[in-house]
């Protein structure tokens, strides 16, 4: 079967909802392709509060945040929603091969918005020695079990990795009556947001073992316990100090990977630092007419940023269809000092947009930091941060007038400790 649309949006989570809404509001014919049974993506299982403070100026739970966007999308007649639809292939000439209960579809789009989100790193990515019993889950899988399917993954739980999902699940499982033994983090600092450390661990006296990792897994059918050990400065475990912890469940909260298999099929170059496509200020990838937003672009700390990226991607897709995006010149956005990654990775000229939002992650926690925007030795602008942390993105807006006639864009983050 065949189908033609202006904009195909792949993934109906927060990024795709905002992207579809933004393009739909501009009168374009939009199709959302969602592999799950309903829209909302991972928000549906994130039943805790903390969403929407930036965008809606109120604190919502994940399902509530999703519901608002779903309503906004459903009100627009020119947005078609296909759930239970799996995209199998995306070709560089913007043809999409998808399958659903009706059969196989070839969808031709004038522009494509990628909003596939990310997936969790798994046990396979970690290679922990020992047996392979049941009882080892990613934190997100456990979250789905508890919050949507309605059952507990285990009774005596250890969490490896202090990412936000792991912290949230520590509290969630404690509330459901499980014993949460602790959270083990390989790095000397926690991976999650401070409010989650306080409200999920400290509130319930759940210990956090920094600079520790799981070195061995025990158990035949079901997990019986693990050995944990401290790690040295280089992150190597000190095995002579290992100790045994009895548990029936190990949750992994050890990072997220943008899900870009489809982007790769479309021959879109990916940034090794973000794991997502290289994009310019329009969130357009190096292949014209392909846009990316949300966690498929970079792993975001707040869903509000995902939505804002979706809105921009939808707006940009319209600009692209109207032929307004020219790309006469391309300038890379350089990063130095304590910065790990940046989005967008380059600017296209003419800039067109009145201002550009830059998203950064930092390498190390540091106090009294200053972010410089430089052109060669000249400082164009500065931002001050009393504290920067790897878990929290830096997000800044720069007026395009500053960047219109520069020869170099170089962000440098300097800080103490």
């Amino acid at each position, binding site marked *: 079967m065949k189908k033609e649309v202006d904009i195909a949006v792949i993934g109906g989570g927060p990024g795709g909802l905002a992207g579809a809404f933004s393009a739909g509001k501009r009168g374009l014919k939009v199709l959302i392709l969602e592999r799950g049974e309903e829209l909302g993506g991972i928000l549906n299982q994130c039943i805790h509060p903390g969403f929407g403070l930036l965008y809606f100026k109120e604190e919502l*739970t994940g399902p509530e945040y*999703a519901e608002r966007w779903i309503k906004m999308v459903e009100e627009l007649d020119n947005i078609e929603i296909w759930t239970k639809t799996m995209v199998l292939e995306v070709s560089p000439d913007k043809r999409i091969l998808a399958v659903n209960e009706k059969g196989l579809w070839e969808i031709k789009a004038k522009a494509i918005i990628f909003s596939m989100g990310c997936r969790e790193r798994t046990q396979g990515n970690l290679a922990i020695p020992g047996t392979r019993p049941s009882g080892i889950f990613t934190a997100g899988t456990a979250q789905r079990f508890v919050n*949507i399917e309605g059952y507990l993954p285990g009774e005596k739980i250890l969490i490896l990795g202090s990412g936000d999902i792991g912290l949230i699940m520590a509290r969630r499982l404690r*509330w*459901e009556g499980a014993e949460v033994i602790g959270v083990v983090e390989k790095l000397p600092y926690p991976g999650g947001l401070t409010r989650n450390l306080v409200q999920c661990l400290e509130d319930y006296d759940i210990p956090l073992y920094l600079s520790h990792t799981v070195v061995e897994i025990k158990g035949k059918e079901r997990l019986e316990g693990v050995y944990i050990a401290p790690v040295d400065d280089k992150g190597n475990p000190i095995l002579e100090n290992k100790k045994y912890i009895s548990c029936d469940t190990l949750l992994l909260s050890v990072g997220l990977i943008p899900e870009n298999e489809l982007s790769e099929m479309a021959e879109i170059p990916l940034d090794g630092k973000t794991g997502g496509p290289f994009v310019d200020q329009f969130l357009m990838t190096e292949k014209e007419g392909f846009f990316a937003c949300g966690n498929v672009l970079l792993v975001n700390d707040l869903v509000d940023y995902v939505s804002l990226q979706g809105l921009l991607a939808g707006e940009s897709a319209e600009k692209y269809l109207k032929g307004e995006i020219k790309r006469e010149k391309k300038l890379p956005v350089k990063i130095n000092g304590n910065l790990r990654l940046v989005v967008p990775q380059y600017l296209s000229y003419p800039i067109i947009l009145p201002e550009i939002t830059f998203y950064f992650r930092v390498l190390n926690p540091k106090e009294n930091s200053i972010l410089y925007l430089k052109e060669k030795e000249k400082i164009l602008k500065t931002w001050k941060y*009393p*504290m920067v942390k790897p878990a929290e993105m830096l997000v800044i807006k720069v007026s395009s007038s500053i960047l219109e006639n520069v020869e170099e864009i170089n962000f440098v983050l300097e800080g103490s400790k």
Partner: protein
Amino acid sequence: MKKLTCIVCPLSCSLFIEEKEELKITGNKCERGIKYAKEEIRNPKRVLTTTVKIKDGIYPVIPVRTSKPIPKDYIFPLLKKLSEVELTAPIPSGYKVLENIFNLGIDVITTREMKKLNK
């Protein structure tokens, strides 16, 4: 002496609280830390989010939350109360599952719609 981590901003100051006649707070780098510590010591509150059982829905549980933050001491008693609740689909979002819990003037509401499962 009690110790708290301030969560008002990313600085995450370590706050030290001495409980005498008045609360004496040190370690804060701004005024907001004092306000946070006082509230956390005198009447710490949290929004509780959990799930309750639901019959005939597309999923066996539905997410709920307290309409406002509740005093921390009520969290486990409320979880116990909610473990005894069973709803029947269809249920809209914002449906009052429990009203005026513990006479706090706070309700427990659903945070999503649950459609009836077509068998």
